[in-house]
């Protein structure tokens, strides 16, 4: 028991936490955009799966990780266009459209994997980049500043997303179409277009989330690689109160628990692995019950917009 709380283990747990948080950050911050504009996209997990496959396959075939990343983003964009077409243009029920998108991503990624790759292979993913000076800070340095580029980018995304939502005209439009689309429309804002763009931003980020999983975190692809991470990301949006900073908090909390249980298993601490794996999910549910602040929920969330209804 003594060595569990040694400095090394703690630093290991934190290091894993940072890596684990990466895909959640991409996916959940993307979902913040979609939901702030009033669209719940439950298909995040499906987008992640298909993009993770695309990134892995392209990287495997070409040997170029950046091309893999690009492929993931393109797949994300296409899935985002599909989601917005169905839920914004056709005004279909968002929850159902999202689940449909998830099934599509799940099935298609699994099929393509069987046809095009066949067996589980690994590649060499993005390598850690040590930031000079910073990584020399004792204890924190190695945890924070010895990560790969996708990890840094995920954390940079938090202030960027905050800036875009709070400080730009686009962000203001996104918020207005999620809160009161009729008001936005009456000022000449194209509600559908803003929703398309927001959903697509979310989907591209979900695509990057998938890539960060397959070519940076695990460096492999297999059936249902995400195991529901996309759904956790959606939950994190509620947990984080639709704010990028809140989402960051949620992602870190979730990941630290997850990382803790992984390390416990590695160290052979005697808890049933089922219980250990359940821990982070349980925590998510509890945290959601305690923290969700409906006041901040976009008022038009889940509501298609039709002009002249007020």
């Amino acid at each position: 028991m003594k060595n569990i709380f040694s400095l090394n283990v703690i630093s290991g747990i934190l290091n894993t936490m940072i890596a684990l948080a990466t895909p959640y950050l991409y996916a959940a911050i993307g979902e913040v955009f979609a939901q702030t504009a009033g669209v719940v996209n439950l298909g995040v997990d499906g987008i992640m799966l298909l993009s993770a496959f695309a990134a892995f396959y392209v990287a495997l075939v070409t040997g170029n990780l950046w091309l893999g990343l690009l492929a993931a983003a393109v797949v994300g964009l296409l899935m985002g266009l599909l989601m917005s077409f169905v839920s914004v243009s056709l005004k279909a029920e968002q929850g159902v459209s999202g689940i449909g998108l998830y099934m599509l991503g799940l099935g298609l990624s699994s099929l393509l994997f069987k046809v095009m790759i066949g067996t589980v292979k690994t590649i060499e993913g993005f390598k850690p980049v040590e930031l000079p000076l910073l990584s020399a800070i004792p204890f924190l340095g190695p945890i924070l500043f010895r990560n790969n580029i996708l990890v840094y980018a995920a954390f940079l995304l938090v202030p960027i997303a905050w800036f875009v939502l709070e400080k730009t005209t686009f962000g203001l439009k996104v918020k207005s179409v999620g809160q009161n689309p009729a008001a936005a429309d009456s000022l000449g804002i194209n509600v559908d277009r803003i929703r398309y763009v927001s959903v697509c931003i979310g989907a591209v980020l979900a695509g990057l989330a998938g890539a960060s999983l397959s070519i940076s975190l695990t460096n492999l692809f297999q059936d249902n690689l995400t195991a529901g991470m996309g759904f956790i990301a959606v939950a994190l949006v509620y947990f984080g109160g639709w704010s990028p900073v809140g989402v960051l908090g949620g992602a870190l909390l979730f990941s630290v628990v997850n990382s803790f249980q992984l390390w416990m298993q590695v160290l052979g601490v005697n808890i049933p692995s089922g219980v250990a794996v359940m821990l982070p999910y349980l925590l998510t549910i509890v945290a959601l019950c305690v923290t969700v602040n409906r006041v901040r929920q976009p008022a038009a969330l889940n509501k298609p917009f039709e002009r002249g209804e007020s």
Partner: protein
Amino acid sequence: MSKTAQEVLKRKTGRVEMRNIVKCFPGVRANSQVCFDVDPGEVHALLGENGAGKSTLMRQLYGMYRPDEGEIIIDGVPTSFRSPADAISAGIGMIHQHFMLVPTLTVAQNVALGQASSRGPLLDLKVVTARIIELAEEYGLKVDPEAFVWQLSVGEQQRIEILKALYRGAGLIILDEPTAVLTPQEVEDLFKTFRRMVAEGHSLIFISHKLNEVLAISDRITVLRDGKVIGTRAAKDVSRSELVGMMVGREIKALDPRPREAGVELLRVEDLHAMGDRGMEALCGVSFAVRSGEILGLAGVSGNGQRELDECLAGMRKSSGGKVLYKGRDISHCTLNERVDAGMAYIPEERMRDGAIREFSVQENVFLHDHESPEFRHGIFLDFAKMRSHAEALVHDFAVKTPSLDTPIKNLSGGNIQKLIMARELSRKPGFLVAAQPTRGVDIGASEYIHQRLLEQREAGTGILLVSEDLDEIMGLSDRIAIMYEGRIMGILDRGQASVEQIGFMMAGVEMGEALSAR
């Protein structure tokens, strides 16, 4: 100010003409063969009962609906607007009957929304704020650019709407019942604003149910009834009664409540304190009592604590001190439902937000409170036949214009929604009623009807707190008048004790003694 707006200001808006407009909704022909035009620099008023089709006509001019038939001609050029964006860039602005504001954003953000920014993709709220303050001063519109819209009273929200249009510098501004929420003094100020705008070459389309306002500000007046134009008159050659005749086709009786001996004390409010949404004290020690069979009028400019008081009485807001006694029982901590069960009723100021569910049908909205009442139940099932006949009776009695009982309430015209809520609350035969702005946005015929109903309730022994910014309404109906200013009651007067001007002074914060000695 956007570039287009400046151009429009320079060239003034030309003549705008709507020709033979037809617009149908399921079950209603909202406009049929309507012709309407506005000359540059003109104020053209649009009159008509609730549901006559005024808002519908204007929404077509603002690009929100497309006419089924007919044309819109601007400066001689037939135009077709695909969206409000097109109308805005043609120099048309509209202030909507139901506010088009985003409650979670600040005033400045609402004004900036959809406008190009001087810093490209980045918001320039400082510039916007400066411009708002400039405009606000120029036109005498008191606003706080940093406040969140959800914290504002209806009157304040209206000012933001007006500012939004001014900010966009529209040449032709459509005002769909802009004065419904303002006090006489505020209306006077607003009219000064309008006159200045007209002098600069703006044209205005002005919708109101208040004839004296319409006669005071307009050059021409067009009356709509049931979607058709009844006629267009020059304001200087038309009389009030002729207009009423055109609108409703019958005489309207003046209010004349018989003096009446009030009964026992029903409701007593003692030193009530409550916080407003902005975290400041909105009620600072309010005390008054209402007896049965009495109407206590509460006059005041909106935003002086009336809304908070109504909500405290209804049980929708927590008081931070003091007591509310109903029939001698302390109900300060009772829930809304407990109060309703005790016989209190509430007609809210924000009827769309607090009084109705937009997506629900007319019938469902009638039963928001009473769906659990044994009268409308068979065991655990709802008695739909009975509910339907009850809803039918209410719709008929209150002359609510609706295509059917199953129409979602959001498709009714503003005045008809108010009538329906009124019908619902009064049909429950309350012991005590809070009526907040009960006739705001309601046409003359229906106002008369609502006033009669309130007086009937008074006859029946209901105690009524009538909150209104319409001094004529307050003076006409109330047995006693309380004047509210900055969260306090400035004084309580008997009917006939003070003139409109004196009450107006007290509404502006002048002490009672001073106001009563003023001539």
